[in-house]
């Protein structure tokens, strides 16, 4: 290597006196950016790179774009925004990164920057939806009450992403306290979620029943959205406010554990330590199956189905590095075979609101996932995250195969009920 380089070539690094082009206080830090050496080991794990073969749609490329801004060689402009918006935020790259680059944190910072340059209308939509609506659960419930009437008139793309919501369910909230079966092992506080609580309340009910069945007193403190979507779409300030509300509420509930049945939300609550300096809350957060695996659980007498395909939500597999726990728990259900989905570590394309904002890429990933689920030959697929469930349901419907999408809590709940009936 020589220091006499040809014209137009330089060694990497900022020029002396370079001024970063960042606009906000939440921008990616130089330290995080510098942890990427650009080796490219992340590339094959990135779904958008796999689809396009394009460096600009890869984790390495996105970090290089952030580096360009931090070194004053590029601006946070429409192109930068486009590259960041094309990222699913699935964090599969983090698993593959030997430098342990905190990509999720970098992306949240970059999205905060992008938010600052969004067109006024796009920003307004996001602020109204993510910063304000998600923070008011009563409003979500109220709006959801109109869904059964509005749903038939939605454009087909949206309609398939909106489940049928039962008004009867909406009228019956999850009880604030559920007493355990048998002697109490302790208290768990449950996050019921924002959308999950209105659109998938039966999953929350199944979760509470499964926990109570296993000797846990279940409390549901008054709470707000975990703030994941808000953080991932550029409003870190609003996300911190939501996190602080939840941290206060859950601390007050004085539970031994905080159990979350949606992978995106458990991943976010585990970030509360870093986001709002509440490690006391973050350290008690467990995803449902992780919790059952750690604490042990009562084996059901049998399984309602013989084989299930197991979907790994990205925010469980990549963001929380949880792979073994669901397999261990389901493996203990007698008569149940867990079948792996080919390319199971690849995002289904739901990715928060990706399937709304980036329909083309999301649809391609959805079709890949649905085809791989169908190829397992199972009649049931388990998905522990509402976004994934909606996306996989839509994909399977388009494919015309009859596979039921269940939450793992629902499967366990059915298994217990079946054994209760004997």
């Amino acid at each position, binding site marked *: *290597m020589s220091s006499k380089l040809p014209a137009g070539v330089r060694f990497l690094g900022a020029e002396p006196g370079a001024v970063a082009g960042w606009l906000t206080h939440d921008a990616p830090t130089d330290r995080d950016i510098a942890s990427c*050496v650009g080796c490219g080991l992340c590339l094959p794990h990135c779904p958008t790179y796999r689809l396009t073969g394009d460096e600009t749609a890869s984790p390495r490329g996105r970090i290089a774009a952030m580096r360009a801004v931090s070194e004053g060689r590029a601006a946070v402009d429409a192109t930068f925004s486009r590259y960041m918006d094309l990222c699913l935020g699935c964090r599969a790259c983090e698993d593959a990164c030997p430098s342990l680059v905190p990509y999720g944190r970098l992306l949240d910072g970059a999205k905060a920057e992008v938010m600052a340059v969004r067109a006024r209308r796009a920003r307004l939509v996001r602020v109204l939806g993510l910063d304000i609506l998600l923070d008011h659960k009563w409003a979500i419930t109220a709006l959801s009450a109109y869904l059964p009437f509005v749903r038939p008139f939605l454009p087909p793309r949206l309609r398939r992403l909106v489940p049928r919501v039962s008004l009867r369910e909406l009228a019956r909230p999850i009880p604030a306290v559920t007493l355990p079966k048998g002697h109490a092992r302790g208290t768990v506080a449950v996050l019921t979620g924002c959308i999950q609580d209105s659109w998938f309340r039966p999953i929350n009910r199944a979760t509470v029943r499964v926990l109570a069945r296993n000797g846990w007193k279940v409390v549901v403190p008054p709470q707000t959205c975990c703030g994941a979507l808000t953080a991932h779409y550029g409003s870190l300030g609003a996300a911190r406010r939501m996190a602080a509300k939840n941290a206060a509420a859950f601390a007050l509930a004085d539970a031994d554990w905080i159990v979350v049945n949606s992978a995106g939300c458990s991943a976010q609550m585990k970030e509360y330590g870093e986001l709002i300096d509440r490690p006391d809350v973050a350290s008690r957060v467990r995803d449902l199956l992780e919790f059952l695996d750690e604490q042990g659980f009562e084996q059901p007498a049998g399984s309602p189905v013989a084989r299930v395909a197991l979907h790994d939500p990205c925010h469980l597999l990549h963001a929380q590095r949880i792979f073994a726990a669901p397999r261990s728990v389901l493996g203990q259900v007698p008569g149940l075979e867990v079948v792996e989905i080919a390319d199971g570590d690849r995002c289904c394309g739901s990715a928060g609101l990706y399937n709304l904002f980036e329909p083309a890429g999301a649809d391609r990933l959805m079709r890949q996932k649905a085809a791989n689920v169908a190829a397992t030959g199972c009649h049931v697929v388990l998905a522990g995250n509402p976004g994934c469930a909606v996306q996989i349901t839509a994909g399977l419907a388009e494919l015309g195969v009859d596979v039921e999408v269940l939450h793992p809590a629902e499967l366990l709940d059915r298994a217990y009920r079946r054994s209760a009936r004997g």
Partner: protein
Amino acid sequence: MIAAARRDLEEILGSGAVLSDPLALRLYGRDASMLEGSCELVAIPSNREQVVACVRIARRRGLAVVPRGAGTGLAGGSTPLPGSLVIVTTRLQRILEIRPEDRLAWVEPGVLNLDLKRRLAPLGLTFAPDPASEASSTIGGNVATNAGGPHCLAYGVTANHIFAVELVLADGTVQSFGGEGPEAGGYDLRGVIIGSEGTVGVITAVCVRLTALPEAVQVLMLGFATVDDAAGVVSEVIAAGLTPAAIELMDRAIVRVVEDFAHAGYPVDAEAVVLIELDGLQGGVDRQRQAVEQIARSHGATVIQAASDPAHRARLWKGRKSAHGAITRIAPDFLQYDVVVPRTRLVEALAAVRVVARDEGLIIAHIVHAGDGNLHPLIMYDRRSPGALEHVLAAGERIVRACLEMGGSISGEHGIGLEKRDFMPLMFSAADLDLNDDVRAAFDPVRTMNPGKILSDVGRSHGPAAGHAAGAAPDEAGSWRR
């Protein structure tokens, strides 16, 4: 000129496959080396016909062509120079045919090395080259750099596994070199193309040789209290006539950072860790294992451990193969060299590096393809401190010169690219370089293809620009090397 080229390209490829935004060009301005260049346009063709069109348009519009796969090269081979069109081959990613009975497969250049291996494994076959970047690097890139990898000790480098290469030449013609077997008539021009780093054409298809997976595989992990003990074991294993598939050495600094990522159970207190993979028939593997363990014990190995199962073996390799990517956890910046010494002089070479490190006051970590005598000294620095880069470059040159004095080479497997181009005169005479340049000119007389790589474009040192190279002749040993 550039606007016109863009219009031409968009007409053929569609606008989504042609990039001209300054930020996009910046992202394609680098590969995995430490250099950043710049280009005028990026094209991402999807098939051979589109590649041909891209090359023709570049020529018509006066742009140089820089072929690029996944951009995992470490020598700057696909770092573009101003005035170039980057042609990305990642969308040519079909495995065209696999013929197990003929032990060959035809693939497009954008197929990832590990994807091909995964397809082949159920057939009991593999594609042997295994660069550390195998998970993300493309077959086209492996061919262009003649990539090595830990297992090239037993199986040879990429060149030993390529039957034929289809190339788009600078004038847009498509030529196939080699045939579906090891012997093709006439001159073996495959040897020129493999390792040509994009300077003779764009690869559009490759016929690869398939190798049977071995019946038995065993990885031994050895820990040592000194790097010299480790290197001594390596030399003795080779001298004893044992034939491991791979012998890798990592020093303590590297072992510590990769253990954090791979959780392979490396002994983080050892000064050096050696991985030795044995493969073949079960009986042979067992015998070799006993022999290696005996040698290790006699050299005072502090850890002798065999991989417990295939998953453990995979973790041990995962650690080794992620070493380069993990370096930023030691220092913010580093330069990596790729020097080779005769493998019997490994201890001496490591001592020479140690002297440089001490004299210059630098931290130098080691990843070594020990069985091949291929060292990757990693010199750590922080570019924010003034003069640090120049200091590191000077130290690196000292290491390179020391290895050459031992009868070594400036590059084992990463290629020459841009990074090591200026070291070429240390190894080759002016006449040698001119002859190389003539060979290249036979493929690309107008220098459209990746100019400035491997050989400097700035004036020939000797003789006329094409035709015969006066004074170029092999030495007595029949080698072109000085």
